[in-house]
């Protein structure tokens, strides 16, 4: 059981990525939600010590209150395992009605700017 309190109707998002240098097919898992102050919080598990966070990051600044958050997890199927490459660790949410992309490179969360959509 994780320890972060979340309000009833908040969005929940998350993604998984293969754990680098792991021989047991384990994944690193990230969960995201918006707290009552409108701050996007991240919880994660990337080793055997258990869940970490919640923590906040500048890349999520100014998220609209009540925004949805959507994240991407790479595919895994019969002929492909979930990749350990971090390149697809991306999440999307609204800022002032625009959609911002953020990217987690395995160490830092980076603001990738706004999508060219209206």
């Amino acid at each position, binding site marked *: *059981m*994780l*320890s*972060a*309190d*979340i309000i*009833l*109707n*908040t*969005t*929940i*998002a*998350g*993604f*998984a990525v*293969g*754990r680098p240098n792991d021989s*047991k*097919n*384990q*994944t690193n*898992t990230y*969960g995201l*939600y918006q707290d009552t102050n409108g701050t996007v919080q991240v*919880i994660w*598990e990337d080793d*055997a010590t*258990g*869940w970490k966070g919640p923590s906040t990051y500048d890349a999520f600044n100014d998220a609209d209150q009540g925004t949805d958050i959507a*994240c991407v*997890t790479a*595919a*895994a*199927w*019969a002929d492909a*395992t*979930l*990749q*350990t490459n971090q390149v697809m660790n991306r999440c999307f949410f609204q800022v002032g009605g625009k959609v911002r992309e953020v990217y987690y490179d395995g160490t830092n969360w980076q603001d990738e700017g706004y999508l060219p959509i209206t």
Partner: protein
Amino acid sequence: MRGQGFRDTIGASTQGSRLDLNDYPVTVPSTSSIGCYWPYVMSQNSDGTVKWSSYGGSNADVAWVNYTLEAHSSIGTGLVVMPAATVFSNAGGFLYRNNDNGKMETFLADRNNNETGLAWGNSESRGSSSLKFLR
């Protein structure tokens, strides 16, 4: 529940095509969120339990199966489905809001419908060998 499949291949229709999930009798209350990560699709029943549907491949005896998992989720909770191991057939699971205590919880599901309710990183539950790719 209905599905549309999109494939990024040359010549594939940009509108995608209907999934054979459309022929599978899963009905979903209007309060439910839907979460998915191929081959898992999940929805919430009207009593707060969770319906876990999974696709076993076109050559499987039964392409789609579904289970009811005893996760006590808040009605309308967000549902985030993710793999819990890099080999997809080993484990999938989800994040949701536990209605008993209001906290975010993880739930590990496998094809044998063994609810674990354990933390995601429990090494004993990861990669459960009871999970098999159907074909």
